[in-house]
């Protein structure tokens, strides 16, 4: 019930937010060329954030120069050089690691404002992101509750040091666990691959399960996203392990579908709204050109997802369809 109310509240605020944004009749990108750089389009989150940004720029009358890094951070960074050479009026940059920082510096140095998505940068005008603080603490509480407040937990945490959003999510997850002395985070932490994450996580989980036989491992958490969780669940099924629970963050339709399956070990998630995030970044570009002062960050609401019923409800409420 509580989760349903939270979901409703989150969606209500989202609807209010988006309605207010689109009701801003004075906003326009007419005559502006906006570069939209995304690190990759293979994953739902990346693709949706990209689509949200592109469609909103076009709805506001702007022209889009789209670039896709193919899930390679170096290619993603290089693509910003191309946008610079194209002389675009602004850049929306979605994700990316530290390789993009010199590119942001060059763009802002050339007078081209950079609007980041899920990437805080000193050279960015504004960063649109989910409420990562809430995501980190919520998934920490949900996971701790799911395993009864004690046990051994493994975590896939490759990006805590490389991406600030992941630092917040994983850091606050750990912060919550400090209040559960019975929970031990297995060391060393696991590091997932950026590309081909599900298969990589599947193999690493199978290795982990061979080291931790039944009764010695209680949960596997993915610290910043949930594509690896797909592989984690596959590995648990392959190994016939029903004693390990899975938690993660992002809540795209693919992982919500896994959560909604009968007896799924994937028990908790926090769903983001990537399309709205991308769209909001594009609206912020328009606000910037309209002379409005933007805050350094714009936060977009998230939807906590708990259990099978929570996954079904979130799936429907986020507009992905219905799950029976």
């Amino acid at each position, binding site marked *: 019930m509580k989760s349903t109310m939270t979901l409703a509240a989150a969606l209500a605020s989202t609807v209010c937010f988006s309605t207010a944004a689109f009701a801003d009749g004075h906003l326009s990108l007419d005559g502006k060329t906006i570069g939209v750089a*995304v690190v990759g*389009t293979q994953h739902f989150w990346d693709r949706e954030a*990209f689509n949200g940004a592109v469609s909103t720029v076009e709805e506001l009358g702007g*022209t*889009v*120069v*789209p*670039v*896709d890094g*193919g*899930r*390679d*951070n*170096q*290619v993603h*960074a*290089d*693509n910003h*050089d*191309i*946008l610079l*050479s*194209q*002389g675009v009026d602004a850049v929306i940059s979605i994700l990316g*690691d*530290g*390789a993009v*920082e*010199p590119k942001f510096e060059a763009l802002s140095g050339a007078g081209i404002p950079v609007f980041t998505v899920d990437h805080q940068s000193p050279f960015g005008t504004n960063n649109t992101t989910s409420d990562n603080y809430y995501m980190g603490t919520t998934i920490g509480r949900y996971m701790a509750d799911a395993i009864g407040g004690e046990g051994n937990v493994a975590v896939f945490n*490759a*990006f805590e*040091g*490389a991406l600030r959003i992941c630092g917040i999510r994983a850091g606050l997850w750990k912060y919550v666990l400090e209040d559960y002395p019975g929970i031990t985070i297995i060391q*060393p932490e696991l*590091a*997932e*691959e*950026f*590309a081909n994450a599900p298969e990589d996580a599947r193999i690493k989980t199978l290795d982990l399960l061979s080291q931790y036989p039944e009764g010695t491992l209680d949960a596997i958490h993915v610290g910043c996203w949930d594509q690896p969780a797909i592989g984690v669940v596959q590995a648990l099924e392959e190994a016939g392990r029903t004693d390990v629970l899975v938690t993660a963050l992002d809540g795209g339709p693919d992982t919500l579908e896994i959560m909604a399956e009968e007896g799924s070990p994937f028990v908790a998630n926090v769903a983001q709204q990537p399309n709205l995030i991308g769209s909001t970044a594009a609206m912020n570009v328009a606000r910037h050109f309209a002379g409005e002062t933007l805050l350094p960050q714009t936060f977009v609401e998230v939807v906590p997802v708990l259990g099978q019923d929570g996954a079904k409800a979130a799936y429907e409420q986020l507009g992905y369809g219905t799950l029976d």
Partner: protein
Amino acid sequence: MTQPMSQRLLGVFPIIVFACLFAYLGVQSTTFLSLDTLELITKQAVPTVIVSLGLATVVIAGGDDVVAGGIDLSIPATAIICAAIIADQLTNQGASLPFAMILAFGAAAIIGAINAFLVVGLRMTPLLATLSMSVAIVGITKVITSSRRIGVTDETIVFIRDGTIFGIAASVVMTTVLVLVFYHALHRTRWGMNMQATGGSRDAAEISGILTRRFVVQSFLIAAFAGWIASVFVLARGSGSSPGTEENMLLEMVLATFLGAAFSPRRVVTLWGAVLGAVVVSALSVGFISIGVNVFWTGCIKGALILLVVASASVTTKGRS
């Protein structure tokens, strides 16, 4: 013997396709045919050019049969592990750049030597030997970096990324020098001629008294050396070592090297062809972006174009034989 007109037309087909394409891009985009864009294209092609030099050397020495001839698929992985070693030494261990580079050179030399041993000593198929080696190297790289990014702020690396020499991007100038060194060594020295003879016909070269096995060994060592050199430019390009960059580089290296062969009159892998191939691959990426091609179609169009060119080259070669 004079070639029929259709055969000759087919021979220049790859050049016509790309000339038309670049003319189209130039008309559609006001910025594509400019010196700035040319510099950007060459700058972005740098790591691919260098690893392609290594691959071209192995193919020249081993012959251009993709399975049984010379091929080294471990060069991008070598570049990535060297980049990881240098980044780790600079950022995590506090080492100097020369020390870090010497360490990385040692790793590259070991990789080259193992490749040579597998192919020449154990007579393994180069494709399988170097592919296995690539997988192993990527695994070791993950151990070194824990699959995490390592940022680098070393002044020399930053200079290679942002600096200029005589007003041209430093990375482009350095790579041009490297290409000329490779060209001189392979085309203007007796050693280079012997290496080409080895790849052209191993039996004929041996009858002529050339120690062919030695040249094949050397080609793998040179390929590893190219990987080592490329690592510095990979680090500069990404301002550090980011995991997962070897896959795209592997794809672009193979594409560039064999696309380059399609441009050569005899349809064989050459150094200049590899360089041109790398620049063309980079130009396609920049060109498609400059006219705003939908990102979901870019890969498809690029792949189709390359397939068209390579297929036409293959048809021409068959026609001649």
